[in-house]
């Protein structure tokens, strides 16, 4: 276990380093510079600004300096979007909104998706199962923005007389409902499909027969014996799903105009605010990597049979 953890942490650090380097060279390859606005500044102004923010130095020197600062927890300061404000401060201001939407979305996906999967497996080959299968297959084929706009249209005044939720995000509890519904829809469908397959697998196991032979109640068999074992593959799936939800958040934040980190990330690319692009990418990447690591550790706790050290 310890050996595994060490290896994973080392890989995580290398990955972050790779992400930082890729991001750095990619963003410097985007034509244009941060100083372009309505009136084009003179070359002298650009040179002076470049010198001020150290952008006139060779790329490798810049990268080295940035990484050096990063190790000390310094993400640099924004050079355009919110001039001279520390990037970390901006991120910490924006991230809670994104995280709240993301967590609520995953939560409802799990709370609804897993029981639906159980239901489909329990009532297999009936109309309930077929209906759920159709809904879930359609659900995972719809891009996030389609779901989001569909919800926006039907529940926010597109149909006459129906205006349940505010169309624009304003921080009230009601305005969280639609973004979370939209963001959690895909994971919900995927989770319920996974749960169904896993449940069908575990229902056919010998220990279920034993439990039945002992005369246990149906509910106990399904929830205590079958579901617990079926949850293992479901947990594996949660890791990548957190990453997906964070990125899917980009779309949902655009549709509902949520002032979250995802939307800010796209704006910072468009504005060539280099420290902000670097900071956001590294922060999100680190978050995703840590989440994946946590999920893998949970995996081990849930199922002690799994031997992590021997690869996959």
């Amino acid at each position, binding site marked *: 276990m310890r050996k595994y953890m060490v290896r994973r942490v080392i890989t995580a650090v290398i990955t972050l380093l790779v*992400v930082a380097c890729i991001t750095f060279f990619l963003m410097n390859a985007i034509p*244009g510079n941060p100083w372009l606005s309505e009136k084009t500044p003179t070359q002298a102004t650009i040179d002076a600004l470049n010198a001020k923010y150290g952008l006139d130095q060779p790329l490798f020197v810049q990268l080295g300096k940035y990484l050096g600062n990063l190790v000390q927890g310094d993400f640099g300061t924004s050079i355009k979007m919110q001039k001279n404000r520390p990037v970390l401060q901006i991120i910490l201001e924006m991230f809670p909104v994104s995280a709240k939407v993301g967590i609520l979305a995953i939560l409802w996906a799990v709370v609804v998706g897993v029981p639906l999967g159980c239901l489909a497996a329990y009532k297999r080959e009936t109309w309930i199962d077929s209906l759920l299968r159709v809904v879930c297959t359609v659900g*995972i084929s719809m*891009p996030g923005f*389609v779901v989001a*706009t569909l919800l926006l249209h039907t529940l926010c005044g597109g149909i006459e007389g129906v205006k349940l939720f505010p169309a624009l995000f304003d921080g009230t509890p009601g305005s969280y409902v639609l973004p979370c519904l939209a963001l959690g829809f895909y994971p919900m469908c995927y989770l319920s499909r996974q749960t169904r397959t896993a449940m069908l697998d575990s229902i056919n196991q010998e220990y279920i027969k034993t439990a039945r032979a002992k005369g246990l109640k149906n509910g106990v068999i399904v929830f205590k014996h079958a579901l617990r074992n079926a949850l293992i593959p479901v947990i594996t799936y949660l890791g990548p799903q957190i990453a997906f939800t964070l*990125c899917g958040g980009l779309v949902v934040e655009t549709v509902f105009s949520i002032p979250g980190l995802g939307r800010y990330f796209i704006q910072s690319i468009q504005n060539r605010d280099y420290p902000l692009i670097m900071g956001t990418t590294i922060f999100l990447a680190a978050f995703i990597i840590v989440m994946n690591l946590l999920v893998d550790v949970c995996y081990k706790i849930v199922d002690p049979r799994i031997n992590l050290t021997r690869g996959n």
Partner: protein
Amino acid sequence: MAKTKKYNKMGSLQPNIDDILDWNKLPENAFEPATATEKESFIQERESVSYWKDAWRRLKKNTVAMVALVIIILLTIFAFAGPQIVPYTYKEQIRGSEALDPWHYTLEDQQKINDYIEEHSGSKVLSVEEAIEQARAEAEANGETLSRVEEAKIRASANVKQESAADTEITAKQAAKELGIKSKAFGYSNRELQRKAEGEDVFPHVFGTDDQGRDIMVRVMVGTRVSIIVGVCAAILVLLIGALYGSVSGYCGGVVDNVMQRIVEIIYSIPEMLIILLLSATLKPALEQFQNSGDGVLQNLVTLLGPNLISMFIAFGMLYWVTMSRIIRGQILQLKQQEYVTAARALGAKGGRIISRHLLPNCVGQIVTTTFLQIPSAIFLESFLSFLGVGVSAPLTSLGSMCSEALSGLTSYPYRLFIPAAILSLMILTLNLFGDGLRDALDPKLKK
């Protein structure tokens, strides 16, 4: 020793020598030549069922997959043949047909609706300026002049009247409902209706037009084409990189495999969406620069496909080959222990030949399935990027960017969003369903 005939023991597989010697004593006419029909039937019987035929037979039994295949073919025809049939192009702005709905009223009906609206909007409401003019005229007639205060009062009351009139104003839709007029399918502008009445053949705007007068149906067709091209090209790129990397890693084994797998591990844990966003923002201008840099073969190729699309599937191909390479590596690790690989090596075949002629053909089922399932996920990603505004950009269009353009006018023109969204979802759905069917057909062992 002449007559001591040796019989084999019961159940022995050893042939009896004497019997074999007896076979030479057959009479000369014991055999007769086969007739032509017999020869033919012989060949027919021996026709083998190849792997692909077998898979196709299984696939045909899968109704869902077949329906999905038919829809995919129809969508492809829609995307590639459609723009040839429709006389409009995706960037052509048709004057006088801006913002048409995908339905229309005939000219007579329009007249009726207009009359109805005029009748029912109550007393004619004066605009602010008109009200003041009127008051002034009245005042002059009485020999007085209008004071400023009075003017302001009139202005305010006229404003209020106008606002309340706007609230009670009857829309064309309500009027049509009252009159019992049903709209006809497809959008026509008034000018086009006129031309049609004169007996000309006018192609309708089946899905209406957008604010700039561009035909939505053609744009949807072109968008679908973009999606299909991105999907297929990205899948091919993923296949090439993944197959090469995976097979080398699996075949070489040892240190090479170890190093290559660590690299895969790192790429696997990179949050790909973030990098793809950056990558497509970077590649597009870079490719545009390259496109304008000269007139070589490569530059022409870039012009042909468009820098948009190329940057999209390069971004996809660069990060999504990892799954493919893992699958192929796993297969090759199993297959390289087989006897035929040892035999090939003993005959002096080189590594490259063994991989390409012996190993890869044997995992073709997995390769085809994985490649095919890349197509919907590439389309998914393309629409995602275009929706966020970093993918396909004007004048070229794609289903994702059409959706994002339609977002602002969602309440008035919901169909502008839902038509491309529906086609996109349908395409991804059918591709997924067909891919699942393909997997079951090509790899029956996996089926549960």
